[in-house]
């Protein structure tokens, strides 16, 4: 008996808001057996739950309709099976909407299968333990919902209906790829030696452009051409589970050993034990070898029995995130931004009595890594006594000081430790550029003050925006470009659940 032919599988989205034109190009020119759209993250799933509560016809990916409208006329006549988790919190509604789009496009006969059953919100209770160490009830925030990561075992029956489109909710990302590979090659659920390599292929493809030159370019060190038109990846997978990772001719980006190696370990912890619902994959044995222009051969991943239990994401209402900013430029920009930040902190704490976690950054001077450096040889107390400015500030979350010191002006203590007592007032210091370890900014000509706060109510969140905007008239000289936003926030934790707690089922819809 001859081996089955290679299976051509591509990735048309690596996250919920990914570009569409590279997916259309893949659908048109890729000669693909399957095209996967991976669109669910911890945040997007929680927002899906929120949308679903507001409207039972929503809760799926907001770009679903636009994506389906663009690709169905290409994939349906070509026989390319589309597999996606764009159902998010409501796969049935996503399938119904997809059928409507297909009818509008005149694609009669198109079949959509929805995989349901990942939602375990009803099966968990206040006593359910979370991996973070507390129970659901002990989190102390309103519960939004919980979803188990389903795997290839659950996706496979949906594929076997012969559907043109399979729409899921929460599944493990690589399983979206492993399931069609299992179907094509006939691998059984315990064929670890093949499920390991197949999982490696799925993991490499699941973030789309991240293996074809996206999230990679670093001018002067790592060159990538044509990122404005970066091609999305596809793999030619062989019967042993090994594959060639590549992209379409004429697209931007690059596929080389470096892009593949970076993606192989993306979001991976122990490389020899990458856990999915399908298998315990071993990426430490993977071989990565150039095989022509923008072609890389991967193989050699190992596989061991799958974890007994499933992972579930549990989402809670996280209150509100308030963010507001104002810019200062020219001589003394940094000093004026420092003064402005001090004023905001002072007014939020003393005038409004708000002790919510509040962070103040100087964007352009020190922000993302503001609290990374430990000052070796400078004990905390000594450092706190030196000239401090609000620019590198961060207070606390859940009782723990996140920034070690810079944020806390003399006399301040972290909000959650301090209770309602505001920090002592302190006159603005003379901004001393370069006094922060790791700060190489010198004398910046352009500084954006950015204030961020996690608030328990929208009113409290809006206070921060108000105070930053009021700097226009009441703050330092020449501040401009105020912007502010309040966004609802979710907090997610994870739980380990028994496989019997999920009840996967497939529903089929026809255009």
């Amino acid at each position, binding site marked *: 008996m001859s081996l089955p032919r290679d299976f051509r599988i591509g990735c048309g989205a690596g996250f919920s808001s990914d570009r569409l034109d590279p997916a259309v190009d893949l659908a048109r020119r890729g000669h693909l057996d399957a095209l996967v759209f991976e669109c669910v993250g*911890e*945040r997007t799933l*929680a927002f899906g739950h929120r949308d679903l509560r507001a409207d039972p016809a929503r809760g799926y990916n907001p770009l679903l309709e636009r994506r389906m409208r663009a690709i169905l006329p290409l994939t349906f006549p070509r026989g390319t099976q589309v597999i996606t988790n764009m159902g998010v919190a409501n796969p049935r509604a996503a399938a119904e909407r997809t059928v409507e789009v297909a009818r509008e496009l005149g694609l009669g006969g198109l079949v959509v299968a929805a995989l349901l059953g990942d939602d375990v919100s009803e099966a968990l209770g206040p006593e359910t333990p979370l991996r*973070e160490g507390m129970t659901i009830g002990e989190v102390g925030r309103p519960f939004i919902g919980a979803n188990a990561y389903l795997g290839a075992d659950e996706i496979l029956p949906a594929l076997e209906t012969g559907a043109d489109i399979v729409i899921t909710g929460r599944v493990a990302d690589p399983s979206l790829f492993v399931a069609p590979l299992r179907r094509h090659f006939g691998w059984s659920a315990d064929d670890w030696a093949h499920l390991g390599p197949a999982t490696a292929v799925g993991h490499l493809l699941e973030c789309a452009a991240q293996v074809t030159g996206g*999230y*990679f370019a*670093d001018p002067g*060190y*790592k060159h990538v051409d044509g990122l404005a038109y970066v091609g999305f990846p596809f793999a030619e997978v062989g019967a042993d589970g090994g594959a060639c990772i590549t992209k379409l001719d004429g697209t931007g980006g690059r596929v080389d050993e*470096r892009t593949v*190696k*970076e*993606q*192989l*370990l*993306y*979001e*991976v*912890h*122990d*490389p020899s034990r990458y856990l999915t619902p399908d298998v315990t994959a071993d990426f*430490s*044995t*993977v*071989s*990565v070898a150039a095989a022509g222009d923008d072609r890389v051969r991967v193989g050699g991943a190992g596989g061991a029995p799958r974890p007994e239990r499933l992972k579930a994401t549990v989402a809670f209402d*996280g209150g509100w*995130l308030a963010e507001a900013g104002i810019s200062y430029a020219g001589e003394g920009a940094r000093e004026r931004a420092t003064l402005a930040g001090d004023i905001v902190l002072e007014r939020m704490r003393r005038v409004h009595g708000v002790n919510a*976690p*509040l*962070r103040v*950054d100087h*964007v352009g001077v020190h*922000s*993302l*890594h503001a*609290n*990374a*450096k*430990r000052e*070796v040889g400078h004990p905390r107390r000594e450092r706190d006594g030196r000239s401090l400015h609000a620019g590198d500030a*961060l207070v606390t*979350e*859940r009782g*723990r000081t*996140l*920034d*070690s*010191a810079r944020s806390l002006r003399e006399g301040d203590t972290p909000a959650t430790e301090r209770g309602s007592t505001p920090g002592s007032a302190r006159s603005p210091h003379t901004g001393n550029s370069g006094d922060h370890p*790791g700060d190489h900014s010198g004398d910046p000509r352009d500084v954006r003050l*950015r204030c*961020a*706060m*996690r608030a328990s109510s929208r009113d409290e969140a809006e206070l921060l925006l108000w105070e930053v905007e009021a700097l226009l008239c009441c703050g330092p000289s020449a501040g401009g470009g105020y912007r502010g936003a309040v966004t609802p*926030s*979710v*907090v*997610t*934790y*994870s739980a380990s659940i028994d496989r019997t707690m999920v009840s996967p089922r497939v529903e089929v819809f026809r255009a």
Partner: protein
Amino acid sequence: MSRTVALRAIAHARAGDKGNRSNVAVFAFDPAHYDTLRDQLTAERLKREFGALLAGPVVRYELPSLHGLNFVMDDALEGGVNESLNLDGHGKSWSSLVLGLDITLPPEVG
């Protein structure tokens, strides 16, 4: 003569996140530099340099066949993307943080 270079000149890196745990994978451009990275880029060094941000334990996995090191850092994202007040709640830029470290190249591969 040995010489000191920025890690960025001899290695590339990518950061990823899961909850409040970050990982940064670092790969030598030239396989000849892998041993130097393994010797100088230790979990203890990351903890020492960035301990104020990387609040929890740092574990390093070695991948000699890929000439890479994977650092897994617990409690390193100020609560994680859904809780952090950092502009970069995912810690996507933690790779650039690590690439800013200095490496001393021994004479034989310098």
